[in-house]
């Protein structure tokens, strides 16, 4: 539209005598403007072709995590020394920073860099217990990949966690960083994990401020750690007695 407009004006100026040089410049300008306007469309086409496939990145990544969770090494690890390794693998395609940013919503911008880092670290550890702690959930279930959709630099990959009697839809919401799709939200049965924590954190932030939220996070992580240790302790005690019996 713009370029047409420029062309029209220059052609209208055409019949005016004694100004041939200006017309040429105007034509050049018109072509230049047209090129500028068209460039995004031309590059958009090529950029689309380069965008990596989110499902193709997610599939091997989830396989890798499940394999790691199922490994004997991990199972016989009472103090969770392997946990850091799981987090390292998870960090390949989970963007805990993007996740934390969204969980805190508008509050995020008011935090200092140090506070942001502190929150990201704690929130990552919380999620570690939320998902790594639930190993059993994945062992006898199958992950099936369904549709995906891409919108700009965001993508949604839909999967199904298939059990013997039920199927749970789980969607991964991802952002393209470089050539890697990084997940920043998980939608289970339509419920966004980020949104769910967001609403809980909102009231804590309102009543207890940021320091209160950090305390709550630390307490929750401790609580989950203790629970995990207790479970292992009972399992550990259970084995020798059954051997003796």
């Amino acid at each position, binding site marked *: 539209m713009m370029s047409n407009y420029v062309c029209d004006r220059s052609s209208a100026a055409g019949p005016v005598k004694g100004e041939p040089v200006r017309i040429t410049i105007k034509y050049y300008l018109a072509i230049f403007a047209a090129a500028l306007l068209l460039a995004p469309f031309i590059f958009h086409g090529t950029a689309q072709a380069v965008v990596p496939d989110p499902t193709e990145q997610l599939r091997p990544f989830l396989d890798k995590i499940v394999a790691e969770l199922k490994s004997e090494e991990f199972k016989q690890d009472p103090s969770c020394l392997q946990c850091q390794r799981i987090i390292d693998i998870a960090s390949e395609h989970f963007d805990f920073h993007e996740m934390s940013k969204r969980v805190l919503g508008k509050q995020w911008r008011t935090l200092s860099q140090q506070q942001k880092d502190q929150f990201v670290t704690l929130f990552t550890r919380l999620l570690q217990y939320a998902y790594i702690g639930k190993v059993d959930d994945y062992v006898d279930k199958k992950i099936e990949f369904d549709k995906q959709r891409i919108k700009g630099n965001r993508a949604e990959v839909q999967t199904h966690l298939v059990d013997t009697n039920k199927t749970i839809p789980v969607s991964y919401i991802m952002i393209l960083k470089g050539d890697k799709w990084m997940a920043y939200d998980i939608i289970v049965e339509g419920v966004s994990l980020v949104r769910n924590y*967001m609403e809980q954190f909102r009231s804590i932030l309102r009543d207890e401020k940021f320091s209160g939220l950090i305390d709550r996070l630390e307490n929750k992580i401790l609580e989950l750690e203790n629970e995990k240790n207790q479970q292992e302790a009972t399992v550990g005690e259970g084995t020798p007695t059954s051997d003796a019996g």
Partner: protein
Amino acid sequence: MIFTMKATFRLFIVCVCLFIATVTLVPPAVSMATDDGATDFLDDEFYDSEPMSVEVGDPLESFNRAMFRFNDFNYTWVFNPVATGYSHIVPVDIRGSVGNFFYNLQEPLRFINSILQGRLSDAGTVLVRFVVNTTGGVAGLGDPAGRELGFKAIDASLGETLGVWGIGDGFYLVVPFYGPTTLRDFSGDMVDGLALSPYYYWADGWEEIAAIYLGKELNKMSLYLGEYEDMKQMSFDPYIALRNGYFQYRKKIRDHNIPLYDE
């Protein structure tokens, strides 16, 4: 027989009264615009928008929290142990069939509600499901329509119909032995569930109606053991986590045209 009819009829009247009260008392939908808007997780606006519970409102929060604790207590100490025991005795495929059976008996209701909401193709799907599952699925014990023919289950309730007609949610409500809902949806469910579900016509009075309801719910719980505990364990305020989860889930099951086919 006469007693049965009387009890059921009385119940029906109660439900209709509750229903009429809601329709007349609840102000028209304030949150209609947002209620209808499809959720797009790929849009950052989604993460900036207000949660549904803020829009619907929770003026009875202290009452609801008390009811939440009551339900939580009952679930933890009564229903969960019973459902766990039941899950050990009855194999999972039978429990699945029992669930299908109850679900199938409510398909005519979903058919009516789909039509009332103007979702004619969904109404067709529900009708096919009912016919196929009642005959080929042996009185609804199996779900061949969904599993083999690809007619997936579709949700349509009176609560949603009322929403489509412009009746607001009223407010968030936690009902004992029932769980999270809103005033509008609860009255809709009472009519849907109690007054119009065929299985309650077998009942000889209140006790049996309660027994059928509890049996149906226990069977359902036995298929989702541990999920509530996980939710509670991972949350900082289980009351808010459940409220938020309820609204998000409801929005999903009522979003009948989720855009999935971009690729």
